[in-house]
């Protein structure tokens, strides 16, 4: 008997509490599989965000630390500097990373901290009921932009990979998506590479994953991917924004 697919041991047996079809579950699996396949399970320390993934510490079968909202890159900095042989990663939503934690993530990248960030851009605050995030698209209706986000009144969409690419300390930045098997495999490759770079002692790596929030977008999980392709993709193109390892 050959196992073709089985759950990675870097995830616990605890059932995810996420909504049906929410991409947080897919991303958890890709992160956990990457850690296991690289043999980093005993070395990994993850930082759970504030947001829907607030219980990530119960799902990853590695050492985990909970954090205050958006501050995990600062806490990760402390952990990595105190324990430089560990593999330290933050898992953050766009409210966590791009709003309240915008300072922490930028300075972690500016300093070139040798940590990995998995950033989930679902264009909305999920946990708190669908308020606008800095990544919310122009025209997108949320509970705080009921007539659609207006640039002059509410600001323009924030492009995190493009922003961090300006920092010399950023080592590897890529934006990926999950809407079909090919993209999921590509996303896993990027996540794994980001952990590989950290294991080699390279600088700051961030993988931006375009996520979906069917619940707060008000559609089915499948419709969410269609909406994402049509609306998010033009604003948030996929690809590598920086790869110092690839340049060498």
């Amino acid at each position: 008997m050959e196992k073709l697919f089985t759950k990675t041991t870097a995830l616990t047996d605890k059932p995810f509490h996420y909504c049906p079809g929410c991409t947080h579950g897919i991303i958890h699996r890709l992160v956990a599989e990457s850690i296991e396949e690289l043999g980093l399970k005993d070395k990994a320390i993850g930082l759970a965000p504030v947001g829907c993934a607030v219980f990530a510490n119960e799902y990853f079968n590695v050492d985990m630390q909970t954090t205050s909202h958006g501050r995990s890159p600062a806490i990760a900095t402390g952990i990595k500097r105190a324990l430089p042989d560990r593999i330290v990663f933050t898992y953050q939503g766009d409210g966590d990373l791009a709003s309240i934690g915008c300072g922490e993530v930028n300075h972690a990248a500016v300093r070139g901290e040798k940590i990995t960030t998995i950033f989930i851009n679902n264009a909305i605050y999920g946990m708190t009921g669908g308020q606008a995030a800095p990544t919310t698209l122009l025209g997108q209706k949320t509970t705080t932009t009921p007539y659609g986000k207006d640039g002059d009144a509410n600001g323009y969409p924030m492009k995190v990979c493009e922003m961090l690419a300006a920092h010399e300390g950023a080592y590897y930045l890529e934006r990926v998506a999950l809407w079909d098997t090919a993209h999921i495999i590509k996303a896993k490759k990027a996540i794994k590479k980001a952990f590989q770079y950290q294991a080699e002692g390279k600088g700051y790596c961030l993988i931006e994953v375009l996520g979906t929030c069917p619940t707060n977008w008000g559609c089915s999980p499948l419709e969410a991917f269609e909406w994402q392709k049509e609306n998010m993709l033009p604003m948030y193109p996929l690809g590598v924004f920086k790869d110092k390892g690839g340049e060498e």
Partner: protein
Amino acid sequence: MIRLTINEELCKGCGLCVNACPKDLLRISTTKENAKSYNPAEMTNMEECIGCKSCALTCPDVCIEIVKE
């Protein structure tokens, strides 16, 4: 032979696997209901499964297991 098992208690019936299967072999059950009141996904024709793993790769709740016997 490929054997695919779906953990019906973990499944939330989101339908992403149904869409991912290139052979169109999965469906959301109209008769079964799990403890959380979700209708889980089910396999309609095990013999036709090619073990490509597309369903398992897309399942957000990691409730699909596939073995080759």
